[in-house]
């Protein structure tokens, strides 16, 4: 056997050791435990599970114990591995290891060092659970677990009010999504009587379309919460309050892609619910455009990348929605490479600028941090879809599929691609070109941080050649036939990307007054976009405020104070009245109590005997 | 019917040998302690005081039994016999050797046998539990004796002993549980049989060496607890003569007094037998037959016989000229019996069992002659704060190792 339990257990042991003993351990030991456990589980996946299960030609199932047994309904602690899982495992453990290594350098001077790594390992445990799950409930355990870790890590700097608020926001918004997911599970249980993937997918094609649509839409709500899609995307930009490695690992590479993974995993259900598919595609596309426009106006380097993440996740959903599941997963993978690189590079930049995150106070860093500059250039090329880079392949696959589905989706996607290239390169130019505008003297990051960046840079550039995901997954999701316009479409999207790069170069390197003029020309629109379309404020006014008001007026003042307290007090006084009578029986003499008991049992025996209850 | 007769015969044999052995155990104890203290020990009655036990028994039987006026008569009289009863009961399930077959005999024209029987009264499959149960009942004898004597020293002795025996019962049970994990049975005979064989051809398969979990710590814990259970030095608080005069048996005299001593020695033999079976491989020899383990016994006897013969021929005292050659003849005879091929399979297991038993008994006596007594709070603290956790840990480690290997 492949001992699948080993994969999540190793990080969990790391969590236990660091979480319990971490305060007393030296930093070196914490590093060894945290990095070693994740690395070991990566090696186990890469060397043992991955190769020997033949990249999942057969599905490997393992049952560990029955968790819930209630009538006919059984949920086991089951793991399963197929090709999709192997890809996810490789991404999660591989990028996880790199980011852990990076974090040992990045978090070197921070307080709560052991706590950080304990949380990070716990996150790995839950994420691997999510990926390995063989039924929805285990997946849900991982799902909730990563949500918890995300909350803990966003609020890692708990002295900062904004960080704890952002943590709360992420947690609460995710609850809405989880509620949807839980409802989806309930419907599955009611209709199919089980939560096991294999059984559900075997029964799904025969189920009524309405049921499947309901399930798929509710799942989409869950996925939208976790993967930050409209309308539940609001938490992700705020989540950047967490340390940068967290942003890279959880809020770019792994956790936020869980929604995409879940939809891909449930492909059978989605394929039989066309309306839901259409909804997924439209939501994905809308999110992609929407977030890209916000990204253009932001000045905080991490916020730019955060909106970029939302936008790219929209792309993945677009892929899923138009039926190109494997393209979605491919983009998930390449996105994990280059977005992790972007975030880690941003971390390196922030590190270089002594904690400054505003791009207006950076600039000219290519002189001070050449390596960071080179790797970030690689990542920016990849996300812009420069031919030959990893992003080019996956984005192209999605766009081609979108064109087949509906040409207008392709055109919107191309525009978004152009915007993406523009704002990412805008960030690049603002950071590395021109003169240094910040304070202090910037410096290059240590080798322990740069080494993972270089690995990721190689993956970002060559990831498309190295891992051809649709080819790997062709057993699960058949390859699409080539269409005649393919080369033309490719050229168009590459042109859009190059155009975006070119415009940004013109605006932020050649003619630096231009951005300000444009902003002035489109004053109200610019301010609206810069304020992220004021969605947060709208949510506050529409949902949060009424909720607080209503709770105060109805639940607290009326229900709690009036009904519940009244009932409790009334019962109390009534009981006191009855007790005053009954206390006469309580003589304090144990033997008379015993007599009462015996007399009572005689009565019961006689009653049972007469009723024939002795049998 | 045959079963009853065979059991009766075995009962009589075991009782006779055991009672005699108990009497002589006291002689051995006095002699060993004397020699540790560079004294002679009993030497007047019989050669080397060998008839001393007999004289003691006669003295104790013929002495007047004093019945103090203030005692609770029924319990006062019942307690010593209860103690002896409980001490003797567990000897009935202790196997001394392997199965034996009594060849067919013709008596008065009828053919009897052949009979196959075991060298114990009963092989029950919860034998270890019975030993524990009986040893836990042993405390009643002492507690009742202490209480019914209506004497404050006796009462204190009884209280101390009940507390002590309850406390040491725990580490003892835990120490017994550990080898049971490797043996996988509760029958004493089966446990001894799991310890058959040798590692690398010479290291016996005994529980104290056994793979995967050598029970050496269990053995040590068991022996310490056994000292306390039998109220022996260094744990003889209940009868500490300089604190409590004589503890729970201060009011007793003559045969009822002797009964307590008998119970103490019978308990010693029982716990040593249990230790032999659980930890030291029962009747299985120390090294394989191929290396000549069967020759040890006859050679030993022959050597003892030779020494006797030598001293008989060169007597230090005139009486030795007669007695020592007689002993020499007896020993040579035993050597011959032990080397006689048909009897070897029957006698050799008994020899090895007895040898191990005697070694452990010697340990008891040796320690009595060497160590001082514990203070009472030290005694309880030792049981609860040291022995109990260590036994628990030992059990945990053993269980873990066994689970790991299986």
């Amino acid at each position, binding site marked *: 056997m492949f001992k699948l339990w080993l994969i999540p257990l190793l990080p969990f042991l790391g969590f236990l050791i660091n979480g319990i003993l971490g305060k007393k351990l030296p930093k070196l030991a914490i590093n060894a435990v945290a990095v070693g456990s994740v690395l070991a589980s990566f090696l186990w996946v890469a060397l043992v599970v991955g190769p020997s299960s033949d990249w999942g030609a057969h599905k490997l199932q393992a049952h560990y114990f029955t968790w819930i047994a209630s009538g006919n309904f059984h949920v086991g602690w089951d793991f399963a591995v197929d090709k999709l899982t192997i890809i996810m495992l490789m991404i999660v453990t591989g990028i996880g290891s790199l980011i852990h290594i990076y974090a040992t350098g990045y978090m070197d001077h921070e307080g709560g060092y052991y706590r950080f790594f304990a949380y990070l390992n716990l996150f790995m445990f839950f994420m691997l659970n999510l990926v390995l799950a063989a039924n929805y409930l285990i997946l849900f355990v991982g799902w909730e677990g990563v949500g918890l870790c995300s909350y803990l890590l966003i609020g890692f700097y708990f002295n900062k009010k904004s960080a704890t608020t952002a943590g709360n926001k992420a947690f609460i918004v995710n609850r809405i999504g989880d509620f949807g997911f839980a409802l989806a599970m309930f419907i599955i249980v009611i209709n199919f009587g089980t939560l096991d993937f294999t059984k559900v997918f075997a029964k799904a094609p025969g189920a009524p379309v309405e049921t499947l649509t309901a399930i798929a839409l509710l799942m989409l709500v869950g996925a939208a919460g976790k993967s930050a899609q409209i309308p539940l995307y609001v938490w992700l930009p705020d989540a950047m309050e967490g340390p940068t490695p967290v942003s890279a690992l959880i809020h770019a590479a792994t956790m936020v892609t869980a929604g995409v993974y879940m939809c891909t995993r449930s492909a059978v259900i989605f394929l039989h619910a066309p309306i839901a598919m259409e909804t997924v595609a439209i939501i994905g596309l809308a999110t992609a455009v929407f977030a890209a426009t916000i990204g253009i106006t932001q000045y905080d380097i991490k916020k730019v990348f955060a909106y970029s993440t939302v936008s790219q996740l929209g792309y993945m959903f677009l892929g899923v929605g138009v039926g190109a599941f494997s393209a979605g997963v491919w983009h998930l993978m390449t996105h994990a490479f280059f977005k992790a690189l972007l975030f880690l590079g941003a971390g390196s930049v922030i590190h270089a600028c002594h904690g400054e995150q505003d791009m207006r106070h950076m600039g000219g860093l290519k002189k001070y941090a050449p390596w960071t500059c080179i790797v970030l250039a690689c990542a920016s090329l990849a996300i812009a879809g420069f031919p030959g880079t990893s992003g080019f392949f996956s984005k192209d696959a999605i766009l081609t599929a979108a064109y087949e589905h509906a040409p207008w989706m392709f055109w919107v996607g191309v525009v978004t691609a152009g915007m993406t290239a523009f704002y990412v390169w805008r960030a690049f130019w603002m950071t590395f070109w021109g003169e240094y505008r910040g304070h202090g003297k910037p410096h290059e990051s240590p080798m322990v941080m740069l080494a993972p960046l270089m690995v990721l840079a190689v993956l970002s550039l060559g990831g498309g050649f190295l891992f051809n995901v649709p080819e790997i997954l062709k057993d699960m999701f058949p390859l699409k036939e080539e269409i005649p316009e393919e080369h033309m479409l490719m050229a168009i999207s590459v042109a859009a990307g190059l155009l975006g790069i070119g415009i940004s170069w013109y605006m932020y390197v050649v003619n630096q007054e231009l951005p300000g003029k444009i902003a002035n020309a489109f004053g109200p629109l610019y301010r609206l976009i810069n304020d992220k379309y004021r969605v947060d404020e709208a949510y506050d006014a529409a949902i949060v405020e009424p909720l607080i008001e209503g709770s105060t007026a109805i639940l607290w003042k009326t229900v709690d104070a009036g009904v519940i307290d009244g009932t409790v007090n009334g019962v109390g006084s009534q009981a006191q009245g009855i007790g005053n009578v009954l206390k006469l029986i309580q003589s304090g003499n144990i033997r008379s109590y015993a007599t009462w008991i015996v007399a009572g049992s005689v009565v019961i*025996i006689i009653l049972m005997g007469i009723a024939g209850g002795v049998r | 019917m045959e079963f009853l007769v065979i059991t009766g015969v075995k009962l009589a044999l075991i009782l006779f040998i055991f009672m005699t052995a108990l009497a002589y155990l006291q002689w051995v104890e006095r002699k060993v302690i004397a020699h540790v203290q560079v004294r002679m020990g009993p030497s007047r009655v019989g050669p080397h005081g060998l008839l001393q036990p007999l004289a003691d028994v006669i003295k104790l039987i013929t002495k007047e039994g004093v019945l103090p006026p203030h005692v609770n008569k029924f319990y006062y009289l019942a307690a010593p016999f209860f103690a002896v009863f409980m001490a003797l009961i567990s000897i009935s399930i202790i196997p001394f050797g392997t199965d034996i077959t009594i060849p067919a005999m013709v008596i008065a024209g009828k053919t009897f046998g052949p009979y196959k029987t075991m060298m114990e009264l009963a092989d029950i499959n*919860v034998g270890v539990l019975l030993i524990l149960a009986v040893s836990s009942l042993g405390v009643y004898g002492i507690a009742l004796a202490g209480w019914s004597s209506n004497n404050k020293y006796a009462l204190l002795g009884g209280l101390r002993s009940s507390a002590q025996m309850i406390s040491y019962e725990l580490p003892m049970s835990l120490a017994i549980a550990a080898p049971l994990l490797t043996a996988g049975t509760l029958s004493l005979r089966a446990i001894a049989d799991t310890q058959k064989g040798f590692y690398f051809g010479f290291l016996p398969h005994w529980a104290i060496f056994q793979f995967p979990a050598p029970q050496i710590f269990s053995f040590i814990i068991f022996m310490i607890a056994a000292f306390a259970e039998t109220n022996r030095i260094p744990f003889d608080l209940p009868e500490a003569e300089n604190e409590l005069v004589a503890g729970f048996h201060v009011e007793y005299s003559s045969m009822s007094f002797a009964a307590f001593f008998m119970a103490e020695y019978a308990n010693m033999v029982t716990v040593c037998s249990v230790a032999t079976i659980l930890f030291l491989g029962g009747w299985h020899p120390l090294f394989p037959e191929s290396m000549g383990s069967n020759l040890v016994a006859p050679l030993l006897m022959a050597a003892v016989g030779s020494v006797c013969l030598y001293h008989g021929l060169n007597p230090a005292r005139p009486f030795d000229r007669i007695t020592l050659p007689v002993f020499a003849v007896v020993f040579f005879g035993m050597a011959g019996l032990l080397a006689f091929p048909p009897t070897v399979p029957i006698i050799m297991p008994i020899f090895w069992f007895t040898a191990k038993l005697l070694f452990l008994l010697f340990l008891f006596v040796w320690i009595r002659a060497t160590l001082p007594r514990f203070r009472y709070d030290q005694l309880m603290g030792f049981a609860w704060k040291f022995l109990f956790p260590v036994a628990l840990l030992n059990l945990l480690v053993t269980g873990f190792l066994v689970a790991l290997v299986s």
Partner: protein
Amino acid sequence: MDPLFFLLFAFIAVACGVNVVLQKHPISSALSLVAVMASLAVLYLLQGAEFIAMAQMIVYAGAIMVLFIFVIMLLNAGTEETKGRSWMALIFGVPAIIGLLGSLAYFMQTGMPKLGEVKFGDWKGGGAYEVGYALFTQYLLPFEVTSVLILIAIVGAIVLARKELD
């Protein structure tokens, strides 16, 4: 032999049980109770419950009752005072006991379904292996809960019995 053994030990059990109630001195009661428990252990053995029989001896006779005797000796409890204050228990209690015994006897006569017979050795499901197996698989949770219960009892007993520190 089975009925013979049953009758013998049932007689001992009942006689000693009556003795528990009748004896004036607590120690006599306690020893009678030990005898009841020992004869019950024999009856358990007759029904093939060898492990429980031994556990009965070790736990009840060897531990619990020793504890009782220990406490009786410690408190030096003498014979009971016969004058009591609660006549209530006597007036209502005796009829209640008779009612209990009578109703039990009556309904066991009339309402009891036909039950089987017990012959020594006809069922061997009560050995240490079977009990242990069931204990550590199906009944693991209750077992663990009782271990916690015992821990609580130990702590409680120590706290209660400790002499006041102030």
